[in-house]
């Protein structure tokens, strides 16, 4: 173990680990020190028990219960690691390191209109953000088929839902809905790359400030391996440099991101 004055992994009790819908689960962790420090838009590293799976699984913080010392994470089963997480029962322990990343940038007293945009498994971090933002909030969230977290988001603003198959809400993608409704505001978005690309274009066309939270495969989560890069506009020969999603991000100004 690291000495007490140094940070280290924490073995956290799983308070709850429940199925939400389809392949989506919510895990509540008892981890006061991380909850104390955490900000909206940051993530934590979860480590698998299966010792063949060594790399961390980065999962965004969905809600922070600072008094209770708890973190809420909402995750989808995508592969073996997240399937393993889904099998854990309450009372079990999981190793956690974090919080990591810069988080969303905002002035907690700002009253400007905001446009919160989520896609699929990019939705969870927007819950804490919506809770903390002050302005009038319009929330647009897109899913392949079954929406989730809608009620929680509904507490903080007006929510529009889109689904690819039209099984709930508006049929189509979130950007289609943005266009259709001509929604405006300071944008905070998290979701799959094609969606973020569309959001960037929409923001630029409408001259809206936009922060995008990106995803990339990670080796460490804390800046050690330079594995998780994304292209950031720069005055180099190729017009970009690589920055680390885990440390320099995951949230970037849309203008900076080169898809």
């Amino acid at each position, binding site marked *: 173990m690291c000495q007490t004055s*140094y940070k280290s992994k924490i073995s956290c009790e799983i308070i709850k680990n429940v199925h939400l819908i389809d392949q989506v689960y919510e895990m509540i962790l008892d981890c006061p020190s991380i909850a104390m420090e955490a900000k909206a838009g940051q993530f934590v590293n979860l480590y698998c028990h299966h010792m063949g799976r060594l790399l961390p699984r980065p999962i965004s913080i969905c809600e922070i219960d600072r008094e209770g010392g708890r973190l809420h994470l909402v995750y989808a089963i995508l592969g073996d690691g997240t399937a393993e997480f889904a099998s854990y029962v309450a009372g079990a322990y999981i190793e956690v390191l974090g919080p990591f990343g810069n988080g969303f940038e905002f002035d907690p007293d700002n009253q400007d209109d905001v446009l919160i945009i989520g896609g699929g498994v990019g939705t969870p971090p927007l819950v804490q953000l919506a809770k903390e933002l002050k302005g009038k909030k319009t929330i647009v969230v897109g899913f392949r088929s079954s929406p989730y977290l809608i009620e929680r988001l509904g507490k903080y603003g007006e929510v529009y839902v889109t689904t690819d198959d039209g099984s709930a809400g508006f049929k189509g993608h979130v950007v289609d809905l943005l266009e259709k409704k001509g929604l405006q505001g300071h944008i905070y978005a998290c979701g799959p790359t094609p969606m973020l690309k569309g959001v960037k274009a929409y923001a630029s066309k409408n001259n809206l400030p936009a922060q995008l939270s990106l995803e990339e495969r990670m*080796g460490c989560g804390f*800046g050690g391996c330079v594995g998780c890069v994304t292209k950031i506009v720069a005055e180099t020969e190729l017009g970009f440099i690589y920055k680390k999603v885990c440390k320099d991000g995951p949230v970037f100004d849309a203008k900076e991101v080169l898809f």
Partner: protein
Amino acid sequence: MNLGINIAGIELKNPIMTASGTFGSGREYEPYVDINKIGCVVVKGVANVPWMGNPAPRIVETYGGMINAVGLQNPGVEVFIAEDIPFLRQFDTKIAVNLAGRTIEEYVAVASRLATADVDFLELNISCPNIKEGGVAFGIDPNMAMKVTEAVKKVAKQPLIVKLSPNVTDITEIARAVEAGGADAVSLINTLIGSRIDIHKRQFILSTKHGGLSGPAIKPVAIRMVYQVANSIRLPIIGMGGIMTGEDAIEFMMAGATGIAVGTANLLDPCATMKILDEMLIFMQNKGIENINDIVGIVK
């Protein structure tokens, strides 16, 4: 107990080093690690000019290991000298700079520039599998390995470690070549070349198709090669490849390594070096080993 070792005339307070590319220049580890307790920080590859590195995805997990295709992204030797050396010199640890290059001229350029810099070792990386321009050819051809070692040695003002590739038929041949070329020490192993396919998307996961396999999965290959090299050259060896515990580190030393480097383990747990140091001490205590040098190469 004596943990101190000597590599090419430089005293390290203990055998623990960091494997290049897995510890940055130490900055990211400051919250987790008492850098004063590390024998030597080996920084990530540094080239004469900034390198972009490869597109993402650069990392993929494998059973008991990982594959990386970082491609030696680095801001170049000037930034390194301006920012990283002062940072590291705050701590009581040695500094080794891993040299990246595509040609002999590039290697020589970065080594020359570092001649006046305050670092303790140069580590010549002739074995990174992720760069296309032929850098890897130095590591798999004995003649080329000797030539680049000679050229860099000529301009080097610090002891020169040469880092060997495991992707060869006979690693002792390369080791002998770099010894002949004037290397002061060798380090091994760099990563094995490996690949993983996303069977759902029907494409390679890494942007470069193949990358460097590291982690505990490769330890048996590393132990074998350290032993083989220890028995074929006289230079000190820095052993690495999948070290996760103090016992792993001891295994490398018994196979013939004087120093050991922690790589992938740093990524999986930023406290890894501190844990490994503690576990080595416990092992020495339990076994009554007074001087760590006594176990180097003890296995015959």
